């Protein structure tokens, strides 16, 4: 079964620095989505990138996707203390083959120090 795996597991940076998190997966996908989760809270959707896209931007977020390497990265630029959270990648397959279930990785815990 496909599986998203993020690295690093934990990342600690200073406010203003950039944070890069990586995600790898095993099988073919239709899309890859990134979510943020503050401790004990719900999952906030950040960005979706489709399998035919290579890069996508949203505000301070930049996501890349390399389907040949089965990997994605999430870059947060000019980080803020409020960006402190866990970040998950989740891979999606077409509705027809899997009911569009998302398969989540273990997550990266990002800490941004003021």
């Amino acid at each position: 079964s496909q599986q998203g795996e993020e690295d690093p597991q934990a990342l600690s940076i200073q406010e203003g620095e950039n944070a890069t998190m990586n995600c790898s997966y095993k099988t073919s996908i239709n899309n890859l989505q990134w979510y943020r989760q503050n401790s004990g809270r719900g999952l906030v959707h950040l960005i979706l990138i489709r399998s035919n896209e290579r890069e996508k931007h949203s505000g301070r977020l930049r996501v890349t996707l390399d389907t040949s390497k089965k990997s994605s990265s999430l870059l947060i630029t000019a980080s803020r203390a409020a960006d402190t959270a866990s970040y998950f990648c989740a891979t999606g397959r077409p509705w027809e083959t899997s009911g569009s279930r998302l398969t989540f990785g273990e997550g990266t815990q990002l800490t941004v120090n003021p």
Partner: protein
Amino acid sequence: EPEVTQTPSHQVTQMGQEVILRCVPISNHLYFYWYRQILGQKVEFLVSFYNNEISEKSEIFDDQFSVERPDGSNFTLKIRSTKLEDSAMYFCASSRRGDTQYFGPGTRLTVL
């Protein structure tokens, strides 16, 4: 901005009891999902639902689980006879086209 809502936020129950977790998806969404996250573990898919029927379910979603869309707005997950290992955060999600999924804040289920 429309949001997925879930009630209750926290449910405590005794082992063997039935629980119903409720969700109100975003109003123009057609695809609905339940996921769960055991403390310290990753988010796991339970079931997807479209056009009033289950589209796919995981191996976790056994006969103790059922889902229902009783009216035009609610989407429920029922666990018939809870076990200790059902303790987890349960998330409902909805999607308009079956791609981007928006999650609710979750219901923390504690089984004693």
